[in-house]
């Protein structure tokens, strides 16, 4: 076996890793150090723990060896490997983001950020907050103001299972229906709320009722609630 150039990396908690130079150069940061001749001894990486560094090295190894063939098959294989690799818990994921950023490993940074983005996709703000423990520090007025500024982005789809008709309705209107309001507040919803017992045409009527109700802004609207909305409220109440 011909002698392959190796580099020594030292994690924040003192773990030593001996890595082939080509693998280590997947990190633009390390590449720079090597090219500037600063890599004779162990390269200290104070911002990366041993556990995370070993994962990063794994990623770099897999991606260096696959960079020769650009074929569709090996790309598929690599994608499958990436999907498996990134299936880690949230804390490790964030550690990997920081490490990939610090070590400047573009592929890993994109992979980790895409994974987080996929978690955010198509979720309601409430769900996103719950997932990442984000504290809502708005006052109700402030929140309402932000909502108004970007009103077009905040809407919910009410979907009927039978006919797959999606109705996009502003959240404030949907909350007129107590059941749906509860669902929203209990973080029940994906971005599409299925309403099993309601057909499209009835749902349309209900939505129109809600609109009228909201606009009228009176409270004694019992008569204007059609039978249909009662249908929603009753069967769906747990």
């Amino acid at each position, binding site marked *: 076996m011909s002698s392959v150039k190796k580099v020594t990396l030292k994690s924040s908690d003192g773990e030593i890793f001996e890595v082939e130079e080509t693998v280590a150069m997947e990190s633009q940061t390390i590449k720079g150090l090597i090219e500037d001749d600063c890599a004779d001894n162990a390269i200290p990486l104070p911002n990366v723990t041993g556990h995370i560094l070993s994962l990063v090295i794994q990623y770099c190894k897999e991606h260096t060896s696959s960079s020769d063939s*650009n074929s569709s098959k090996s790309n598929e294989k690599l994608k499958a490997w990436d999907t498996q690799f990134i299936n880690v818990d949230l*804390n490790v994921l*964030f550690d990997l983001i920081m490490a990939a950023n610090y070590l400047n490993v573009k592929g890993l940074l994109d992979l980790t950020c895409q994974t987080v983005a996929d978690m955010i996709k198509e979720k309601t*703000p409430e769900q*996103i*907050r*719950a997932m990442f*423990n984000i504290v809502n520090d*708005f006052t109700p007025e402030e929140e309402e103001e932000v909502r108004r500024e970007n009103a*077009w982005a905040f809407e919910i789809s009410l979907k009927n299972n039978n006919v797959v008709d999606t109705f996009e309705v502003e959240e404030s209107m949907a909350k007129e229906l107590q059941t749906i309001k509860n669902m929203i507040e209990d973080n029940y919803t994906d971005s599409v709320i299925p309403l099993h017992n309601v057909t499209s045409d009835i749902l349309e009527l209900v939505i129109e009722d809600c609109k009228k109700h909201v606009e009228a802004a009176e409270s004694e609207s019992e008569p204007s609630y059609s039978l249909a909305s009662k249908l929603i409220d009753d069967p769906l109440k747990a």
Partner: protein
Amino acid sequence: MAESTSKRLKPTDPEEATVVEDRISNLPDSLLCHILSFLTTKEAVVTSILSSRWTTLWTLVPKLDFDSNEFGEIFSSDEEEQSPNHQDQWNTNRYHFTFAHIVSRVWALRDRSRNNANPIKHFRLYWRSDSDPIHVDTWVRTAITPDLEELDLFISHPKPFNFPSTFFNYAKSLLVLKLNGKIVLNPPSSSFGFPSLKTVHLVNVRFANGNTFSKLLSCCPVLQNLYLQIYIRDRDNYFKIIVPTLKTLHLVFLRFWDCKLEINAPALEYLYCRGCSIEDILLGNLSNLLEADVTVDHDASKDYGKKIRDFIGALSNVKSLQLVSNLTECLCYATETDLPMFHNLTCLSIHIGCILWDVLLNLLHRAPNLAVLVFNTENVEWYNFDEEYTSIIVSMFYGDVPMCISSHLQTFHFKGFKGSTYELEFVEHILKTARFLKTMTVSSARMNSEEKVRVLKELLMFPRESRTCQVAFL
């Protein structure tokens, strides 16, 4: 950058009152923006409500991604579409957003806090509508700046959309260009070009005249990936793809008329080609080609002799070859000596309409290092030919067994297996002669479970020359 990981935290349970950290909000702006850049603009704007930290983050993302599909029934794309009745339903205090309003609003709010110090690097627009494309024209023109790196447009409209020619002079940093739809391209004769443009996808676009395509290619000195799907509407079309830096070429022609194609791309590594007739293709030097997935149109009344030799000869260096129906039919016209030696060929996939054993045999004899063979007979008519095929196979293996089978073949995948005699005969012989075979996979979609059991039993009974061979039946 906030200090975050001094201790390892457990995945959180909302009920617990322990230290539960919001790590995502503690990431620096640049990383959060990078995450948001993987979302559409609408999804990114939703994050503005998460907490005060997030309110303006979406404005930092140098990407705008609008998809008119994302906006449902309530937001129509045409302002005039609203009938008077519908209008009444809306409270006058409530704003009614059309897609055009949304895009303009987002753009304006985005620029508000930064005075254009945060230019758009990536603009993606998916727009399907009957209404006046004046907005689209405005947006595209606004997006075309020297900072733009990626442009991705899908425009579906009854009339053709004239792509602004300023594009060819202003978008100097462009890396990726994707255009899909009735978009008319008309590069000016002296255009600055795109010194960094590496990837171009053109689907169903229109070229202003016969020179447009060549002009476009000449603007791209470092082009590596070209993806083309073209409708050939006029006669006398001649597509010359002369790109010395090109590595990947994916070509689909949908044609009513004939079209000549010349490929001169010596650095090409991957070629996918559909829709040309073999007489009309000129493949230049492809000595770096690693993978080819090619088929051609075939007219059974013609004799392709020399043409096929030239064509298949150009592909002789590939490592992986996918032969689809029609090209295999053309190969009938080639004798074994017409075919070049495929020294590097390690993976061959044949998907054919009718089995041409001669063609297969010739190819196998010319590919001494073949390690993977995929034999796909999903569309083959075998009913009348079972006996005939069986005897062909027997004689095939009685004579000179191709060297690749006996000394190199490691993987054999038979797709579209139906349980007929000739198929079993074929598999049996491969197993008997392939000394280094590691995996034999047989997949069949159309057999019922009884049949499958019968076949599996037979397969497992066949003697195997290679002791390490595994047989799989899917």
